[in-house]
């Protein structure tokens, strides 16, 4: 799942793909690089300048329409917490709604169900959209996140969302400190054991940066290490800024696990 930020202020690319043409051009690059899914967002996840409904729609709807037209088979996800946005982008051709703020808009699930779209269920510890976590305490973060994600997924099914369209995401950094995010990565297997496909959104996040003491521009290796561990433990979808590197890591981990064969295996066999 490749990240496409149609924002002027997101924490990694700082507006690099802000604008319809730039964003659609970026999607073409990401597809060429091997992305199976693109995740288009119009609001910076962290705290920042307010983005109202009309502005969010104006940023992402033209991108979704253009991407749908140009890449009919591409899975298009939209990162939004607003049910109104979900409704419009699903009409414009989006396949999945990435509800990164964990049901903050109570009407969102019904909209997703109505369109037969997929849904990413997330965990934020009850934070309001774009709020920063402050001294967050979990008696057992892995169990609490697992239980909450299971509840959210089952609630989505009960609301009519297609069961085969639901994935769960522990949502690193959101409502969590660095140790919480490391623990959730370490125990990816607990999330996998729920039976729901697990999405890991770890790319260049602060838990990587704090662990290594590095800025966003230098967090690729840390992200890939976390990606490899989570993939080994059964994570299925990886949200990333770095498609080529992530695909290579996943291909290698899959081969080590025995899930796929090497592309070539002629060494010592000639």
């Amino acid at each position: 799942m490749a990240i496409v930020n149609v924002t002027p202020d997101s924490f990694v690319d700082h507006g690099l793909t802000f604008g319809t043409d730039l964003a659609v051009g970026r999607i073409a690059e990401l597809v060429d690089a091997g992305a199976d899914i693109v995740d288009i967002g119009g609001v910076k996840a962290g705290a920042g300048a307010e983005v109202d409904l009309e502005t969010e729609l104006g940023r992402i709807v033209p991108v979704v329409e253009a991407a749908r037209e140009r890449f009919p088979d591409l899975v298009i996800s939209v990162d939004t917490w607003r049910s109104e946005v979900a409704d419009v982008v699903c009409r414009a051709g989006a396949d999945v709604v990435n509800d990164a703020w964990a049901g903050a808009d109570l009407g969102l699930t019904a909209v997703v169900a109505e369109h037969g779209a997929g849904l990413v269920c997330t965990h934020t510890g009850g934070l309001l959209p774009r709020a920063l976590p402050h001294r967050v305490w979990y008696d057992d973060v892995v169990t609490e996140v697992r239980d909450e994600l299971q509840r959210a997924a089952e609630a989505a099914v009960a609301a009519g969302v297609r069961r085969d369209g639901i994935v769960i995401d522990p949502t690193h950094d959101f409502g969590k400190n660095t140790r919480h995010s490391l623990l959730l990565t370490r125990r990816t297997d607990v999330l996998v054991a729920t039976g729901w496909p697990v999405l890991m959104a770890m790319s260049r996040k602060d838990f990587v940066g704090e662990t290594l003491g590095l800025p966003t521009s230098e967090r690729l290796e840390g992200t890939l290490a976390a990606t490899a561990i989570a993939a080994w433990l059964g994570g299925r979808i990886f949200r990333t800024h770095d498609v080529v590197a992530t695909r290579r890591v996943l291909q290698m981990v899959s081969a080590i696990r025995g899930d796929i064969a090497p592309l070539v295996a002629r060494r010592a066999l000639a």
Partner: protein
Amino acid sequence: MSVTPELDVAAVGFVPSTPLLIPDLAGAAPGEPDEVRAAARQAVDAMLASGPDRIVVMAASPPPTLNGAVPVWDFTGFGLPAPELLGSWPLPWQLGLGAWLLDDRGWDGRRDYVTAFSTAADLVGGRTAYLAVGDGSVHFADEPSDGFEGARETFDRGVAAAIAAGDVASLSALARDPVEEIRADAPPVWRQVAAAVGSRPVTTARLVYDAAPYGVRYFAGWWLL
């Protein structure tokens, strides 16, 4: 403000309620927390040097459930490995932070814990020093303007001045009804401080830290009575 005659108040230590004070929790890298950690240690040391018989840790936390067990600090909820809790009981983390500071500075005498839910009777018992764990306003750098910049500044400046001057009445007044949006957690703690000190004269007042390096206003200082 009256004086509760049963109380024998030796000192008050003011320290932040940030978990960043704990090196094992905040990480090994040296950096900005060093200054506030040093200030907190200084405040605790000055409070202990007043010669108390016991320390009362005050924090804005849920009441501790002690069940007769030995209360200990426990920061597993922030992601640290679980400590050995045989025969002991974990304190709410804010009180645990005070307990950790006392351990860190070598206090092995009597200690008790009070919260905003405690009563005046909980404050009584021997010559006592109070360790007040709490912070001023909160506003992170990435957060947009919310119109409460002035309220935060007025509140924090007033608290700093009150601690620096040993001004119980001013601290009490500031803590009585703060603007909710400034998100300060210390007012209930400072109300308890004011209740304990009452109208006793503060003979020495020091403020050694007053800054918000991460968006939360930290204060460190002490009063001797």
